[in-house]
């Protein structure tokens, strides 16, 4: 049950590695600066960055069609960027500006852009799962062929919402792609101590849902698997779970001193930097030299810098915003 989707070189589309790299570069630049801006007090609230996990967001994001749905978590910036959320509007949101994508009412933990299928980051662990199941139900009911993706961490797997939602996706055979980013930690805890079965793929057998583990720091592998899985969903074969092994370079939240990370662990993961894994391949096949990669990264940095400058210059929301959008009519 755990390997029924293989990244087969014959069926799969060619891997758009250059685009994947560029997306990762954008996420890297965005998260790096957000961490600094948060430290410096320019971004308020809670912030959870996905530095080190860029390949999952980019690989899955690129594998989806434009109108597919994504429901994500407190650590959702990368997923949003990979789905094409406007960098300016997103940065402005983190800055709590009126021109933010949610008019300053959502913030980092709630950035959303339904026009890009992004149903939102979510501050409740596990909440993305039932919501994505609902989106999958809509897609099936309305015969839209849209895939609904739920991103979640391995920590969320212990939540009842995971259990109930995966079972529903299974019995209703919904086009739901379950993407677990297993970054080892849930806050300060090593998730391997919080279950006897740390493999999410194995746990998934309880629902009769096919699942495959993938190297979450290898964007091409993620892309190939996600493409195949999305195609399967679209073909009406029901849900599929991807467990992407990855690592968050930063703390649970920005500022977390991370005493719980054993010596050397982070360093060894940083050695497998998703951008370098991909970059090596790009250089090897001659798709993008080191210099070209540096340019892509600079462009990403400049894009983010421009968004920051713009965000800084924008005003806070009008006070009327506080009272708007509670109800529709």
């Amino acid at each position, binding site marked *: 049950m755990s390997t029924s989707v293989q990244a087969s070189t014959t069926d799969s589309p060619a891997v758009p590695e250059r685009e994947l790299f560029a997306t990762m570069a954008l996420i890297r630049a965005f998260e790096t600066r957000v961490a600094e801006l948060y430290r410096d007090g320019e971004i308020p609230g809670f912030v959870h960055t996905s530095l080190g996990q860029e390949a999952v967001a980019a690989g899955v994001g690129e594998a989806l069609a434009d109108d597919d*749905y994504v*429901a994500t978590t407190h650590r959702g910036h990368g997923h949003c960027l990979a789905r094409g959320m406007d960098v300016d509007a997103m940065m402005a949101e983190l800055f709590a500006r009126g021109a933010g*994508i*949610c*008019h300053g*009412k*959502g913030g980092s933990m*709630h950035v*959303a*852009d*339904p*026009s890009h299928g992004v*149903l*939102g980051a*979510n*501050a*409740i662990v596990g*909440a993305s*799962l*039932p*919501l*994505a*199941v*609902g*989106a999958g*139900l*809509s*897609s099936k*009911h*309305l015969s839209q062929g849209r895939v*609904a993706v739920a991103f979640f961490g391995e920590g969320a797997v212990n939540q*009842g*919402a995971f*259990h*109930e*939602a995966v*079972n*529903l996706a299974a*019995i*209703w055979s919904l086009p739901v792609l379950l993407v677990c980013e297993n970054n080892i930690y849930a806050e300060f805890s090593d998730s391997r101590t919080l279950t006897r079965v740390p493999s999410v793929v194995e746990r998934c057998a309880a629902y009769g849902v096919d699942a495959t583990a993938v190297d979450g720091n290898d964007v091409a592998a993620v892309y190939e698997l996600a493409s195949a899985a999305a195609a399967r969903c679209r073909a009406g074969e029901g849900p599929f779970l991807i467990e992407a092994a990855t690592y968050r370079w930063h703390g649970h939240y920005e500022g977390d001193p991370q005493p719980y990370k054993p010596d050397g662990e982070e360093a060894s993961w940083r050695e497998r930097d998703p951008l370098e894994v991909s970059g090596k391949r790009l250089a090897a096949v001659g798709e993008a030299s080191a210099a070209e990669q540096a340019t892509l990264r600079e462009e990403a940095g400049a894009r983010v810098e421009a968004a920051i400058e713009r965000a800084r210059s924008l005003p806070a929301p009008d006070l009327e*915003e506080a009272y*708007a*959008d*509670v*109800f*529709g*009519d």
Partner: protein
Amino acid sequence: MSSATEAAAAERRYIDALNEGMATALEEDERVVVMGIDVGAGGGIFRVTKGLYERFGPERVIDTPIAEMGYVGAAVGAAMTGLRPIVEIMFMDFVGVCLDPILNQAAKLRYMTAGALEIPVVFRMQTGAGKAAGAQHSQSLEAWFAHVPGLKVVLPATVADARDLMLAAVRDPNPVVFVENRRLYGSKGDIDADPLPLGKARVARPGEQVTVLTWGQMLRTCLAAAEEGDASLEVIDLRSLAPLDMETILASVRRTGRLLIVHEAIQDFGAGAEIAARVGDQLFDELRTPVRRLGTPTVPMPFSPDLEKALLPTSKAISTAAEALVAEG
């Protein structure tokens, strides 16, 4: 002439009117689905959804596992993405296992996305004591939902409203908590030609001396009290707690100078308190007597029918309280 139209002429039961409301909603809008435990093939544990499965099929009338967090969350996700689910929580007490999708998702995501997400979902919940169902199957928790911005809360007390408020709730672009009282299921009445909109209270019986404000199953008890007692009572059926039709309430109390609020829910910190507080403030100079409340005392609902009866407000207690107010000033 459809069978629904024919039926409109005759007297029917509350439960049939609910069913008719759902049937009409399913008929008039493809996007409407009904979801819940045994609402489909089984026709509902109380037979409220009887026949809908046969008529609209398993894709529109969807049986779920016992997994409220999952399927209520899925209903919310489906509502964000184009469906208009009517989802049943069999007993209101069971919100203990599935509040998050109501409290943190449905109620808030329109606001947090600055209106980009619309969440037209109806949460049907059956409520109430008086059937010896015990403390875990007898609670009236409408005050909780009224306290949550972003939720509408309706409580049909009449056969007409069972249908009309159901239809209004389904057509509403917002999440609506729809509270059915089990003891009303067998009650009979006519359907109004002209439905009152959601959000308007109704003067169920005009009177002169005391305004008696109530909702749900207690309406019958209050009407009985009006018949039995000596004081002239104006009985108002509130119909919805959110929106709260203060206009109708204030107009009545301005005339009578006295207000008695009656509900089945626990009196302490119940929804009656809000109305008492508002009227006490807004009509401070016009009230002849203090605003009084009559609800259930602060105890879990006991199983014993005798104890249950002793705790719930009776028509006698209502008329006595009303007469006491008249005597007071």
